[in-house]
């Protein structure tokens, strides 16, 4: 990660005098020195596992109508099913759907949307950012104009515009999130790549007559990764919150694939009549996810950027 330039030069022979931990090891040790961050990481891993294995561990398939009974509709947390005798620890919604299962499936969709959009946005943003920084000049100023233009509008507004025109759908939400987020990564990568570009190892790579593409992605890019990770930790929580908001507003995921945001929206109508559990428990799941990511992200930020205070 630190020494990308060596991949074309044979490593020097002989024993290494001082044993230095790999950057990954050093990073892990520093990260673990903060117990709150470790708690956040454990919580996040747990949530991710629940999301991945939801179909295997959920007490019920909440979208298999054969398993639902309208008789069980609107049960309070802890009550049991009239038919199967199954206990609904977090109650049921008006259609008799077990909220524990619904939340597990909802998490799955929320995290899936966030993860895919994060991956795509990072990839697109990085390629564009590195290209802008490496070539500079007109290409650079053109790309950065677009980035500035986009960042001058609130993300939620842009996402709403897109979804209002495109309609609902998991793929469309992902597209909207990618379009909203790529600019942050492009700007981050560009600003660190512009500093790195002037360093000697890039000149060295150039004098070896390596191709532009190789220098950009094998030499320049690896050295721009730390700030990228910092931005990504902030953006992933933002992506989850934004998806939830869009789904809550009714322009996000379709009713057949409800994310946490849509579950909350569905239960919202019953909040005033006292059936708080239909929307509050999915909300708590959403909040725990976001808090876990923030705890991890804050620590990552501190470790990667020691100068940053607060």
């Amino acid at each position: 990660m630190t020494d990308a330039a060596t991949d074309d030069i044979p490593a020097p022979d002989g024993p290494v005098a001082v044993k230095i931990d790999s950057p990954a090891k050093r990073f892990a040790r520093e990260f673990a020195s903060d117990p709150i961050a470790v708690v956040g990481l454990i919580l996040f891993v747990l949530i991710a596992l629940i999301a991945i294995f939801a179909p295997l561990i959920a007490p019920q398939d909440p979208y298999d109508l054969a398993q639902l009974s309208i008789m069980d509709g609107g049960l309070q947390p802890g009550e049991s099913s009239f038919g199967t005798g199954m206990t609904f620890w977090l109650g049921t919604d008006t259609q008799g759907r077990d909220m524990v299962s619904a939340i597990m499936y909802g998490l799955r969709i929320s995290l899936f949307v966030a993860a895919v959009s994060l991956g795509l946005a990072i990839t697109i943003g990085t390629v564009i950012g590195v290209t802008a920084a490496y070539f500079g000049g007109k290409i650079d100023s053109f790309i950065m104009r677009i980035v500035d233009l986009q960042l001058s509008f609130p993300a939620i507004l842009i996402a709403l515009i897109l979804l209002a025109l495109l309609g609902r759908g998991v793929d469309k939400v992902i597209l909207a999130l990618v379009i909203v987020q790529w600019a942050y990564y492009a700007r981050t990568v560009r600003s660190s790549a512009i500093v790195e570009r002037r360093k000697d190892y890039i000149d060295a790579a150039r004098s070896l007559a390596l191709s532009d593409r190789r220098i950009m992605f094998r030499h320049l890019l690896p050295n721009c990764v730390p700030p990228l990770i910092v931005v990504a930790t902030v953006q992933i929580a933002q992506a989850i919150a934004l998806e939830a908001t869009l789904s809550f507003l009714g322009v996000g995921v379709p009713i057949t694939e409800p994310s946490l945001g849509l579950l909350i929206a569905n239960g919202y109508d019953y909040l005033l009549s006292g059936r708080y559990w239909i929307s509050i428990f999915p909300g708590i799941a959403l909040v725990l996810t976001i808090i876990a990511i923030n705890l991890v992200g804050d620590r990552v930020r501190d470790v990667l950027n020691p100068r940053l205070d607060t």
Partner: protein
Amino acid sequence: MIVYLIRRFGQSVLSIAAMAVLVFLGVYAIGNPIDVLINPEATQAEIAATTARLGLDRPLYEQFGIFVWNALHGDLGNSFVYGRPAVDIILDRLPATMELAFVALILSVGLGVPLGVWAGLRPDSIAGRTIMGGSILGFSLPNFWQGMLLILIFAVLLGWLPAGGRGETTEFLGMRVSFLTLDGLSHLILPAINLALFKMSLIIRLARANTREVCLQDYVKFARAKGLSGRRVVLVHILKNIMIPVVTIIGLELGSMVAFAIVTETVFAWPGMGKLLIDSINLLDRPVIVAYLMLTVLIIVTINFVVDVIYSLLDPRIGLSEMKG
């Protein structure tokens, strides 16, 4: 300065033009504009008439010209649902959103700055840590979720405040406002807090970080050494110096307040333009959607322009560096 103003104005016009192209392409080029712009319940003759009036049978660039020409004349089509010009409907709703945004802005500054300074003066105290913890929750938790909790606590459990609507309104400067009647005020409190929380959290963090920085400066140490009271040091020496970045952030975030109002208005059924947008999306009332987008873009670009100009007046270095660049 003039060069900077002209250049900055050009950028603003360019932003609006770019958004107009995007909205135009979104409506006219993706999918069939006849479906988008003409009421699904229209008769064949009406469809033909509207197609001709909007010039949908002509090439795309000519259509764009017509779209821009109409937009410049304030004509963004008629609402399917209300049968009135879309722009008029949105302007009817504008005062409600503006009232909400301004009250939220006042709340976020009025509470955010003192809390941030307090947390900055005593960063390791329990109060300081609590404020910071709260601010992290304030801007990491989704807006709509905070709003729902407010409703659950203050409207459902305690029953102190109404859960939605605008309440009684009175005429004020030619607009209908809520904050002058007791009933309206009780309806305004929760949505305003909801909209303010995110900005307040930002301002708290900013004020805290700046206070900590300023506290280490020589002039603060000197003021203390001179024997000035703690209150005077904080109110005069520290507060004055942290306000510059705070004012910048307020300006920049003002535009996003209008966008965030969409969420708050939906949660609290506040009859502003954000609620109108969501209702229009659900009703497929597309002329209103297009009109909302263009108006909001105009508002945000105008705010950004004004903020930049004011800021360059306050801090001459900005204009100068822009001119060189």
